[in-house]
């Protein structure tokens, strides 16, 4: 898909909006950094996750499962399951961005909620590319800087429980989930997932209750037929 060239005014508007999203999202890398070292990861591992994994929900999930005493494998599987939604974003973005070769290989790294939200609704390839790149690159830079700041600060603080950082993890997951909860079916899936996870906490090894909850998504996805109106992520506030 191609379209007319962007006017400077149009381009400026997209860049401004995208930088705003980049700034807002990047900043919460501070909370990831702090939560991750509180979970027992080193500063280097925390920064490696933000550099190499670079998809917020998966990163939070990995350290969340490890913090709860789960095996690294459970944490990694949970992170991968959450990462599958980026595949769907990529499917939508590919024809719109129209990149191939090394550009595609590089662009893939910044296929995340925010860059998708800021480009998938554009009507031309130039506009989509500007939104995607500006958002993706600004989030990447700020998210990584903020992660380092949060990790170093978190290490300096000492016992994370004193500062309620263990509670911050739950709050972060809820904030990531919140926009999706406007949909009735998502509410049902959420409640069932909670029931399944808490139901098997007493018997299953740590990390497994969260993975088991993915079964709810499988079951409801197979049994229902309606598309989800909240499917695309909103730009963060």
């Amino acid at each position, binding site marked *: 898909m191609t379209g007319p060239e962007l006017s400077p005014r149009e381009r400026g508007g997209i860049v401004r909006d995208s930088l705003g999203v980049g700034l807002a999202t990047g900043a919460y890398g501070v909370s990831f950094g702090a939560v991750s070292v509180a979970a027992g990861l080193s500063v280097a*591992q925390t920064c*490696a996750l933000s550099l190499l994994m670079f998809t917020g929900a998966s990163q939070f999930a990995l350290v969340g499962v490890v913090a709860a005493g789960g095996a690294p494998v459970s944490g990694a599987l949970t992170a991968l399951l959450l990462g599958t939604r980026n595949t769907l974003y990529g499917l939508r973005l590919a024809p719109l961005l129209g990149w191939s070769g090394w550009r595609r290989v590089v662009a893939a790294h910044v296929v995340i909620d925010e860059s998708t939200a800021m480009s998938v609704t554009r009507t031309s390839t130039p506009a989509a590319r500007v939104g995607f790149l500006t958002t993706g690159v600004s989030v990447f830079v700020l998210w990584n800087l903020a992660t380092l700041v949060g990790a170093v600060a978190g290490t300096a603080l000492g016992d994370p429980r*004193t500062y309620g950082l263990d509670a911050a993890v739950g*709050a972060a997951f809820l904030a990531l989930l919140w926009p999706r909860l406007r949909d009735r079916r998502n509410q049902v899936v959420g409640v069932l997932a909670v029931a399944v996870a808490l139901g098997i906490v007493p018997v299953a090894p740590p990390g497994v209750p969260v993975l088991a909850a993915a079964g709810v998504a499988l079951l409801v996805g197979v049994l229902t037929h309606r598309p*989800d109106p909240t499917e695309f992520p909103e730009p963060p506030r």
Partner: protein
Amino acid sequence: MSWTALLLAALGCYLLKLTGLSVPARVIERPVVERVADLIPVALLSALVAVQVFASGHELALDARALGLAVAVVLLLLRAPFLVVVFGGALAAALVRLV
């Protein structure tokens, strides 16, 4: 946390992104696959909230973290930004532990 698990998970997450950009949509894009993939974040994040807040090892627990979550809910209802929600929840839990 082992570096091997960390790096493999990171590589896997990258390949999931690259697959989406590279594979023709018709190979993956089926309604049932889409619905399941779409519901997975909802199910996993809900379970993560529950386990993170109400579990302690193999036991269910109601402690300062629950208050932190309640404060997070109020802040989300007030449309507070992400950082305010996260650190607001933490602050509430920290304060209740002080008293």
